[in-house]
């Protein structure tokens, strides 16, 4: 909704836009300049942040180049640093979390958008939003004292007994590791999937549903085969948002993942994520190369989340436009 720019006739006989001096006198120009400075500071801060990340990682970029992303040795003594285990860990835990969160989240969003009466839907959405507000360290706290023992004593053995032939569920069971981190992350990102998907589903025009129902489809069929595909872009967007959140999570992950730079097919294995190793080693990296390698990891994380957030936004905007464009009959 654009602000209308009307021209206000000043005290003098001048019609049309006011002169600079009259604007200055009436305080508008000052207001404009002051607020501009604040807005500009946001841009400056962001530029400075990107600059610091880039400048601060110059040593490993020159020394290792792209090999940084292909080597898996992280050895401070011999000054060898490779990012592979951390990228692997970050991606694996994020994938596990999405595998759990996406079905649950979309299912819940469908329920809230399609089935639940408005009041219940709003109340449940309220609780989901509160869930999104729970800080990471509290998830970590629960992870350490509740989830890890649960995993180690019940869930991991059960998985090993039933699905142990798969390489994912082999090996010693510590309670901590990729799977545990993935589960904790799943709980953290579900609210994002639910709230955005619910909004997008709600904005699907009614006539789409009605058309499907009038052709004889069941409620589920109209939802799953018509409404959800219509909102597909927005739902994808919510998944990207969730993914971006999962990638950047630090505290909950470092408290349950085991902090070992290991690449393993087994989900029971301990691992490491980019955010976790930065948190553990930044303040103690003694050699410049070590320190800057950590910064480079930060840069990688930044770029990943940047791309994902951008894509997410595009998709969500596109989805809501589509719904709105076709009219809400």
């Amino acid at each position, binding site marked *: 909704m654009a602000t209308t720019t009307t021209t206000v006739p000043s005290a003098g006989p001048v019609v049309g836009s006011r002169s600079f001096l009259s604007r200055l006198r009436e305080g508008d120009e000052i207001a404009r300049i002051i607020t501009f400075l604040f807005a500009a500071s946001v841009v400056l801060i962001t530029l400075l942040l990107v600059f610091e990340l880039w400048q601060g990682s110059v040593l490993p970029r020159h020394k290792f180049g792209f090999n940084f992303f292909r080597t898996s040795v992280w050895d401070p003594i011999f000054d060898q640093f490779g990012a592979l285990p951390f990228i692997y860990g970050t991606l694996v835990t994020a994938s596990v979390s999405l595998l759990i969160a996406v079905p649950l989240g979309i299912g819940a969003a469908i329920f809230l958008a399609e089935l639940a009466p408005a009041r219940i839907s709003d109340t449940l959405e309220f609780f989901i939003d509160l869930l999104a507000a729970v800080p990471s360290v509290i998830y970590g706290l629960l992870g350490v004292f509740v989830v890890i023992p649960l995993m180690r004593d019940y869930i991991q053995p059960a998985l090993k007994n039933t699905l142990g032939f798969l390489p994912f569920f082999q090996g010693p069971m510590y309670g901590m590791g990729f799977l545990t981190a993935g589960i904790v992350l799943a709980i953290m990102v579900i609210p994002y999937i639910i709230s955005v998907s619910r909004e997008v589903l709600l904005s699907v025009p009614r006539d789409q549903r009605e058309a499907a129902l009038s052709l004889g489809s069941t409620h589920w069929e109209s939802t799953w085969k018509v409404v959800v595909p219509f909102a597909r872009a927005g739902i994808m967007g919510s998944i990207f948002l969730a993914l971006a959140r999962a990638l950047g999570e630090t505290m909950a992950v470092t408290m349950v993942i085991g902090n070992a730079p290991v690449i393993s097919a087994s989900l029971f294995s301990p691992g490491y994520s980019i955010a976790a190793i930065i948190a553990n080693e930044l303040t*103690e990296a*003694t050699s410049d190369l070590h320190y800057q390698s950590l910064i480079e990891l930060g840069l990688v994380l930044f770029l990943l989340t940047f791309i994902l957030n951008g894509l997410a936004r595009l998709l969500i905007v596109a989805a809501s436009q589509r719904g709105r464009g076709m009219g809400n009959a």
Partner: protein
Amino acid sequence: MKRIAVLLLVVLALAGVVWADSALLINGAGATFPYPIYSKWFDEYHKTNGAAEINYQSVGSGAGIKQVTEGTVDFGATDGPMNDDQLKAYKDKHGSAILHFPTVLGAVVPTYNIPGVTTSLNFTPDALVGIFLGRISKWNDPVIANANKGVNLPANDIVVIHRSDGSGTTYIWTDYFSKVSADWKDKVGKGTSVNWPVGLGGKGNENVTGLVKQTPNSVGYVELIYAVQNKIPYGAVKNAMGEFVMADLASVSAAAAAASTTMPDDFRVSITNAKGKGVYPISSFTWLLIPQKFTDASKRDAIKGFVTWMLADGQNYAENLSYAKLPKEVVAKELTALNKIQ
């Protein structure tokens, strides 16, 4: 409502500013190895000498060395003495040197959580190195079992727990390993952060203890007091004379006995795998890292005052927390060295 909020903000801001100079706050950071005794010391010292508050953050020796070099803390602490490169880096950055001051003697013990085993196990150097290299993967492996006849060791997988942060305790442990195993020295080496072949990482002595306590079939290495305070079993280690020795005040002091008369001027010395009877082989001094030159005279005096107190009254608190006192010769030498600080 708005006015009240603004007023509150102003009051709080002023309070913060006014509060600024109430006490002299000195910041230090570093090793988790001596954290129990340091936290006791700084607390007691503050009670008897209220002028200075010494805030010590147990973030690991690696961070202690880095932060004192960066100048973001007033002093550091480490159980792995700074090497020549690190000393040079400090000197280049600050123009003056950084000094090591030993505070207590401690021991790093192998602690474990094996279902059904409540006694102290005997560990040979080969067993320990093998476990941490990943070569020995089950508790009932012959290398371990042969030293522990009569103990029912289960056929469970060993969960190795090491440090995820830069640690002086790791330095002591890997220093010992490098001395008893050429294999370890080649493959992994010694340092505050190494490339561990196997295992999970815990942050600080505290986390490793917590992890061992909570994880069945695990083994980790921690400073003695952590195992004692948390009542988790720890093992005896075979020393250079072939005896299996448990870490305690006597065996740790024995390890330092030889070194105390030959202590170098900069106090950097390793006493792991020391020769002698009744020596616990994984013992070590732990050091405070104090800059030689202070720009702030009150901070300098406060720190010198603390070190003087620590070398006298402070030593009396050590044994209660299972740290061994410094040998008398070392104390005398340190008091002289204190004069170097300007």
